[in-house]
């Protein structure tokens, strides 16, 4: 089926309900030193005009399942949509090569090494057929996945739902998303809720390739279908997403981080992007690596941060877009699980990190969007903005020492109303991948305590042998700080105030304060 996002489906309505009250506030409303009593929308980093993202008021909103099951029957071709097969194939070609590079799939699933992976993820169909495993091969795990499905069914036979199994040092989490079953086995200290959320990301990743309508259709037709046939070559997207979940704080915070950029430059880039519009263009997104430069959207259309993360993942895990203009169908499941968008993805220059994503509703729009890109580039180059942008790319992050707080090693600050976060680059001792994931683990721990489903907390302070941590959530922001173990509580309290003042001072550079629409 064609990308029918204009098809007024139910989920479409849900996305744009009235909770997204635009936050129109004058600049002088902003206090110099934000206090916890701060109204949402005035915290440092809050956008001035209107929000860019579909707004989740809180982390809990996102995990709640507010989707309406889509019953939309595909029109015309009742057999498996050829288009899907075709589209999946075009992704597949290049990925086959990548697969060999990325995946050490040949691992023996009976070894201690396989068992001791930090986080396993399995996806299976309701018939118990393997669809994906993070480590090892699906074939070797088919009996294990059969057992998983059996456990799910036995519990369901009692009109009950299996959630998780806990053991010393690891836990198994189940997520049932008809027609799929996702299972995570984790040795991290994340809560069940957080692990479930990660499985949801994986589920939406698969939906983004097929649409839920197709997925349902396939399994309604043939319960026993081997979905790997359709997903062949896309495994590295899931692999990459899992790695992002382990390392990228944005996915934890439900937020996106921006390339630090003078607001005058960013505004110029935004307005150039705004000018390069087309009839069916819905979102124009400019990325610098894994950072957002700017996002321009059609009026009244909001992008969910989860969909944006899936786009980040798509761009980040394929090198093919570097070779020319890419054209790929993608379903943005938080927007509408029933239809495809079509994304024009290209780098501004082959060696540059600047990647432009133009999202259209029309599958025939390639040349129109290609044209948009040229107009954007032209406009950008005519002004000094392009040079300034390229200059900014040289330092895509900042050091924590700029804040001027001794003993502060790292922090995450999220402005709740804009859905944007900022954090300095990882310095010693968190530069190795292992240490980076350990630090993320600590943030995940703080996050799960603050957002405990039954016993949420206002703040957490944890003093340990390797670092002192502090987390604080208010109605306007979330703040996570990591101090050296020598830091005292008095220092932490002073640091919070100083840091908030610093972020307020730098917010022009660190956040997108004036997002635009066409």
């Amino acid at each position, binding site marked *: 089926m064609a990308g029918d996002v204009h098809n007024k489906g139910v989920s479409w309505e849900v996305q744009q309900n009235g909770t997204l009250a635009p936050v129109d506030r004058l600049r002088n409303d902003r206090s110099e030193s934000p206090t916890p009593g701060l109204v949402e929308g005035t915290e440092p980093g809050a956008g001035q005009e209107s929000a860019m993202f579909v707004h989740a008021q809180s982390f809990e909103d996102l995990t709640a399942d507010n989707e309406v099951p889509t019953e939309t029957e595909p029109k015309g071709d009742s057999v498996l949509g050829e288009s899907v097969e075709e589209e999946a194939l075009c992704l597949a070609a290049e990925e086959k090569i990548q697969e060999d590079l990325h995946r050490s799939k040949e691992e023996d699933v009976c070894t201690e090494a396989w*068992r001791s992976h930090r986080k*396993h993820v399995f996806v299976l169909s309701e018939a118990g057929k393997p669809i994906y495993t993070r480590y090892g091969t699906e074939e070797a795990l088919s009996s*294990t996945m059969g*057992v*998983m499905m*059996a*456990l799910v069914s*036995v*519990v369901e036979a009692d009109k*009950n*739902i*299996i*959630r*998780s*199994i*806990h*053991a*010393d*040092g*690891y836990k*198994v989490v189940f997520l049932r998303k008809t027609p799929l079953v996702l299972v995570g*086995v984790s040795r991290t*200290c994340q809560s*069940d809720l957080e692990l479930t959320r990660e499985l949801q990301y994986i589920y939406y990743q698969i939906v983004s390739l097929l649409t839920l309508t197709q997925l349902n259709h396939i399994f309604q037709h043939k319960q026993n279908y081997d979905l790997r046939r359709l997903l062949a070559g896309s495994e590295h997207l899931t692999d990459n997403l899992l790695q992002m979940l382990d390392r990228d704080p944005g996915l934890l915070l439900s937020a996106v981080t921006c390339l630090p950029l003078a607001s005058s430059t960013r505004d110029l880039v935004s307005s150039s992007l705004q000018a390069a519009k087309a009839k069916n263009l819905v979102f124009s997104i400019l990325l610098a690596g894994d950072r957002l430069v700017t996002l321009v959207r059609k009026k009244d259309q909001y992008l969910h941060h989860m969909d944006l993360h899936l786009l980040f993942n798509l761009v980040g895990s394929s090198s093919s877009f570097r070779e020319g203009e890419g054209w790929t169908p993608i379903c943005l499941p938080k927007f509408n699980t029933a239809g495809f968008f079509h994304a024009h993805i290209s780098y501004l220059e082959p060696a540059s990190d600047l990647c432009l994503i133009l999202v259209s509703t029309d599958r025939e729009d390639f040349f129109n969007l290609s044209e948009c890109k040229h107009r954007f580039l032209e406009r950008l180059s005519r002004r000094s903005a392009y040079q300034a942008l390229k200059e900014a790319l040289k330092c895509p992050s900042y050091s924590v020492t700029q804040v001027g707080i001794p003993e502060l090693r790292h922090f995450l600050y999220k402005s709740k109303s804009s859905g944007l976060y900022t954090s300095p680059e990882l310095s010693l001792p968190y530069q190795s991948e292992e240490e980076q994931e350990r630090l993320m683990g600590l943030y995940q*721990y703080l996050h799960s*305590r603050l957002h*405990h*489903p*039954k*016993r*949420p*907390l*206002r*703040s*957490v*302070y*944890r*003093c*340990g*042998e390797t670092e002192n941590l502090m987390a604080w959530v208010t109605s306007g922001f979330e703040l996570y700080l990591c101090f050296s173990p020598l830091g*005292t*509580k*008095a220092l*932490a*309290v002073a640091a919070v105030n100083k840091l908030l003042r610093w972020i307020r001072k730098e917010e022009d550079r660190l956040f997108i304060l004036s997002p635009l629409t066409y």
Partner: protein
Amino acid sequence: MASGMQEKLYNPSLLSFFVYNPSFGPREGEEEKKILFYHPSDVEKNEKIRNVGLCEAIVQFTRTFCPTKPAKSLHTQKNRQFFFEAEDSFWIVMVHWCSCSVFLKPVDRFWSPEHSKHVFCKYSLIDTVYGAVLRQCYSMYKLFNGTFVRAMETGGVELLMQKLEKFFYRYLQTLHLQSCDLLDVFGGIAFFPLDKMTYLKIQSFVNRVEESLSLIKYTTFLYNDQLIWSGLEQDDMRILYKYLTTSLFPRHSEPELAGRDSPLRPEVAGNLLHYGRFLTGPANIKDPEAKFRFPRIFVNTKDSYEELHLIVYKAMSAAVCFMISASMELTREFCEQLDSLVGPQLTLLASDICEQYNVNRRISGPEKEPQFKFIYFNHMNLAEKSTIHMRKTASVSLTSVHPDLMKILGDINCDFARVDEDEEIIVKAMTDYWVVGKKSDQRELYVILNQKNANLIEVNEEVKRLCATQFNNIFFLD
């Protein structure tokens, strides 16, 4: 005593409890043989088999990921199951509902005024708490019945099933699952603080009695439900202590409170020389019909495996347990001898301790309502101290803080258990209470502060003051 039916109503969260051994019915059609005990017993056979089968499957499944550490609990939408391999291949499983209606009593105006009402609460059970309760069930069984394997050796599966039925049928009714909390995880012992002189008096008393009555193998001495001296191994003492303080003592506290003419204290009336009496065994040793049968307990089950008579003798607030090898027969003569020897001495000792205790209390000054409440536990000697728990009774252990705060303590305890290093965690709850957890070496301290407007630094100062007054010789990470 409350009837079984009423007690059952009090325990709405327990869905089922069963003991099975997968090796007993390996063939298809013989699955029922695996089940050694199942509560509630009126569940249909196939459902029992299905539930046991699910537990087996879960345990087996998790061995795929860690052969040595299988599943300990299963969370589903409606219930939560806890698994414990008590002995080789013998599994005990406890299944709880996830929600029920609970009556929260108003216990302390200052700490929890707003919660004295009937509420339908979806409880979030903390795994470590209920895992500990399950292990405690087994320890209690083992204390009075010995190990499963021994029972099998003596009388085969039939004997084991009889023992399980006899013990758990009653024991499960006495469990109070809603009021389980962090203290169940610790399973600690409260020690009675005492000056050296009085302590030596007690020790010499114990030595003298053991000398005169050479049958006595072990002795323990308690005052006010708190331990002063024990000859048992720590693990055995911990479960015996649990039995004494939550079951035996509360059942026998009434006679002392009752008036002199009350029919509840017949034997005291006949004995004016001392206040001593048996809490186990014959109610009145003067009674010619009296039978000298005492409960049997099993200790050191890992090595020497000893079966003992448990004699609990009490005078005023002092209680002594005498343990004598079960191979000896206890006669009327022995009991009379014990009564006449121990009774007067213990009465005297009890009033000595009481006096000493009151002197100490006066020195420490009048008690003000403090701004904080705390729980302390030492893993090395199992010492625990709580100012959160008002008292332990047979029915329920009352706490003076809101259950959610108790659960936050549980959460912090889980965080501590994950890493083997010294830590401090300070959190501020949505209700603005501050909760502080400190772990240093083998010791853990949890403090709840009711200073809603305090900041982190002030809270830290407050806890420092508390540590200085209550635990001045213990180092806690700052």
